[in-house]
């Protein structure tokens, strides 16, 4: 069975706390919709063949790669033999198609494969969640991150995509220039900085909230993936979680190598699945323990902070 995913790369604008709208480049899931940060989240089944069509409405070429997925890229090189794109290019106004098999369950980044230092920073990234065989969205008893025997059954699931925004880069690149030193001043969860992280999902260019709600005793699967260029360290206040997968490789297979952590560092591009039981009623802060990342520019509180509410 083949699932078609149609993506458009477009320019748009995002809102960061305390400043004017900022130009960005992002993916959208339909011709009529605007670009969004991060790109549309897709749910597919393990083993599905994905036929992804990328239509390029940006001023320059772009392309698409998936991280952690086996495929044969079709890189494009310039006259000097240097990479221009890590995969088939879509020219401005044109499109490109990619065929990928979602071979294993987990959370995977899709992102630009063309000049990623500029295009990924501009916002061309999103995630695809691959569901294990047997997963049925209508039947909570089938819900797990990685299927039977992996100890990843959950009642509540949340995907948190970490990112950074260097506003000078955005303005420079949108104006056709070349950026200099990378020095982001905004740090994002699902494309938003606190306090916007705790707002609900909406129809804006930053549609995904990062707030969480659960009842005491519910099993929460927190799926954190780092789309930024820097390392980030998530700390869960009042909760010690079990790390059940790293980079979408489940840790409980023939033996159980899952382990418990209160705070965990993610390198760029990496992901961890953290499983924990919702504690007593109340609010719990989840934040970046790199404490220079809990500000917007210099304003505290901001950046990578969200709240779990147990009621």
């Amino acid at each position, binding site marked *: 069975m083949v699932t078609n995913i149609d993506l458009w790369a477009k320019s748009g604008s995002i809102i960061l706390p305390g400043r004017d709208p900022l130009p960005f480049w992002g993916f959208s899931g339909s011709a009529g919709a605007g670009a969004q940060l991060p790109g549309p989240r897709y749910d597919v089944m393990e083993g599905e063949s994905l036929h992804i069509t990328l239509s390029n409405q940006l001023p320059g070429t772009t392309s698409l*790669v998936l*991280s*952690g*997925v*086996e*495929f*044969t*890229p*079709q*890189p494009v090189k310039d006259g*000097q*033999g*240097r*990479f*221009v794109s*890590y*995969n088939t290019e879509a020219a401005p106004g044109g499109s490109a198609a990619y065929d990928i098999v979602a071979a294993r369950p987990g959370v*995977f980044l899709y992102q630009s*494969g063309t*000049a*990623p*230092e*500029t295009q*990924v*920073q501009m916002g061309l990234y999103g995630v695809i969640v691959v569901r294990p065989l047997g997963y049925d969205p209508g039947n909570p008893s089938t819900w797990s991150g990685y299927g039977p025997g992996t100890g990843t059954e959950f009642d509540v699931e949340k995907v948190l995509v970490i990112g950074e925004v260097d506003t000078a880069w955005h303005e420079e690149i949108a104006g056709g220039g*070349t950026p*200099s*030193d*990378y020095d982001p001043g905004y740090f994002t969860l699902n494309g938003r900085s606190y306090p916007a992280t705790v707002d609900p999902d909406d129809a804006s260019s930053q549609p995904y909230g990062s707030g969480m709600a659960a009842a005491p005793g519910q099993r929460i699967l927190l799926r954190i993936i780092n789309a930024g*260029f*820097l*390392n980030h360290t998530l700390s869960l206040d009042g909760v010690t979680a079990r790390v059940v997968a*790293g*980079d*979408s*490789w489940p*840790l409980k297979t023939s*033996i159980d*190598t899952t382990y418990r952590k209160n705070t965990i560092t993610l*390198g*760029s*591009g*990496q*992901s961890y699945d953290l499983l924990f039981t919702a504690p007593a009623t109340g609010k719990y802060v989840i934040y970046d323990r790199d404490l220079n990342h809990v500000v917007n520019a210099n304003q505290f509180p901001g950046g990578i902070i969200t709240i779990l509410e147990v009621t």
Partner: protein
Amino acid sequence: MAIIEQRLGATDGWVKMPDGNLFYIMGFVDITGVPETAVVSYRGKARLIAPLVEAKVGDEVYLTLTNLGFPGRPDLDDSHTVHWHGFPNQIPLYDGVPEASVAVRVGRDFDYYYKPLDPGTYMYHCHFEPVEHIQMGMVGPLIARPRDYDPGVPALKTAYGSGTGTEFAREYFVFLTELDARAHEFMVLVQEYDWSEYRADYYLINGRAYPDTVKDNGDPSLPSQPFSARIKANTGDRVLLRFVNLGYQQHAIEIVGIPLHVAGVDAQRPVGLNGEDLSYGKNVLYVAPGQTYDVMFTAPAPGTYPLYNRNCHKNMNAGVAPGGMVSEVAVHPGTLPPQPGPNA
């Protein structure tokens, strides 16, 4: 068990970045077997990265360090050492920390002795004024082979010994460092550098920045940077990548289209006290300075698979893309001859 005698000269030299800029370095050069009268001709010929040191568990390694001085900085009379980073149960005399043992003065030799105990990927570097000498380029790769290693027998061509699931057909070291242009310029201009101002301008694999990384071993345009960072394999080959980080920053390396399996960390198989197999998969390998990872994959369908730093701002040369820590995995349809040695 073999006796291995290798001799390293410590001296200075110059490296070239893809944008044409030349940088003064300190480093090591292999002078094994060079007649005593000819040793002086290696002054100023430091290599980035330093020569590979390779031995089997049980071998006896006599590594002679000869301090050839710095023709480019005749005012400097720095001593040098070799620190085999990660050697288990080492004694200070052979550990190369000048504050706690001895260093080698200009014009003198010292014999380090090692009898490797555990197989895996290590690194060596000078530990004299280490913040300066490591950044200046005195860094090299080191492989300890398992005792039963036999490259002619597939089941014995392994990273950690037969039965450890680490058989490989080809192996490459992926040696990560950075170059701070000001630090190197200050050195040649005889100025003090404030190391808390450290910033990397060039991000290097095996001593080269992209696109030089994909040039062949011994490319004539890079006389001081002999090691290619291009990974080649035939479809179906088991490939072993030996990651080393001797820079001052953490790096996150990804190969587009090829997930990785971590079979060794810091020259140890990841195993629990009862032999539990704790090896694991990774999509992006996150490596800190002073760490090594042995990572394996099976070469997929023929094609070109880009290797890049997921800290994408590091894929530049002095701020200009493409560059930096980028290379590629070239997979051939069975047409490559067997690999004669690491990175060959």
